[in-house]
């Protein structure tokens, strides 16, 4: 089954270790990882993607793409839980999450930030880090077991489910790294 997963962990170090452990599962043939990245949400709610790129344009694009993917992972949970937010506005929420991820705090409008904070909090609470990945897995045990070893919590949505979301863009997973890498924050 093709899935997007978010493994939420207590800190960056655990996320780095979980990223490498995920690719080890791929090397062993337990799952196939198509792409993965590490993200962090600071205590103020801003999401940063740990990249290996220094090009500012690409860093922003990566932030937008992966931030939006994070919103898509929250998807119906966020929409359903938000009594004051209709399901149809989720597109805006996902996009706002991406904007916040890629831009500096003062570049994001405050209302977008509030929406993004609401939505992504279901997946990535303030102060936590996560590994976001696109994977093919025959069963969920390998990733779940690996995540529990690091004290992580796994959120999972099927790729087809996310692709059917009205707000999904095929560009979102474009910025997941197609191999293991050393995550760095700007």
């Amino acid at each position: 089954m093709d899935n997007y997963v978010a493994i939420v962990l207590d800190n960056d170090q655990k996320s780095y270790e979980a990223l490498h452990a995920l690719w080890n599962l791929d090397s062993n043939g337990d799952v196939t990882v198509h792409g993965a990245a590490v993200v962090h949400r600071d205590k103020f709610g801003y999401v940063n993607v740990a990249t290996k790129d220094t090009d500012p344009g690409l860093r922003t694009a990566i932030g937008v793409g992966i931030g939006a993917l994070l919103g898509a992972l929250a998807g119906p949970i966020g929409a359903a839980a938000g009594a004051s937010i209709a399901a149809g506005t989720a597109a805006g929420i996902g996009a706002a999450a991406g904007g916040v991820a890629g831009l500096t705090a003062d570049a994001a409008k405050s209302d977008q930030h509030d929406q993004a904070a609401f939505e992504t909090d279901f997946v990535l609470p303030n102060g936590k880090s996560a590994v976001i990945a696109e994977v093919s897995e025959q069963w969920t045990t390998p990733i779940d077991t690996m995540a529990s070893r690091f004290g992580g919590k796994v959120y999972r949505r099927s790729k087809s489910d996310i692709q059917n979301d009205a707000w999904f863009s095929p560009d979102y997973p474009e910025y997941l790294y197609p191999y293991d890498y050393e995550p760095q924050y700007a």
Partner: protein
Amino acid sequence: MSNVNGALEQARAKAQELHKQILATLGKDQANVRANAESLSAQAHELARSVKGLGDNQQADAKQRLNDAASVLEGLAGDAKSLASASQAELKAKNEAAVHRARAAALKLSQALAAKRASAQLIHS
């Protein structure tokens, strides 16, 4: 980096390496990008040729993805070659296009690998 025991794993590892190399040239000066363009193009072309040959031994799903990967890699070879003659103004956009194409090639090969692994697990179960 993934293990490279099988031919498909090796092909994916090479596509991943191409992505790394092209990504590393982003933001570098024109001379550096141009110096690497021919080599990247040749690597992509060679990998496309090798990937085409892998399809014969795979199931339909993996075979289709390998054909797709070969097409993407041929496109990447063209993208990389065009970097050598790109103007300064064109360079960034062309380089980014090559990054996207390399990512797509790695994804197609990864999907083919997943299909192959799923098929093998079905046989063994």
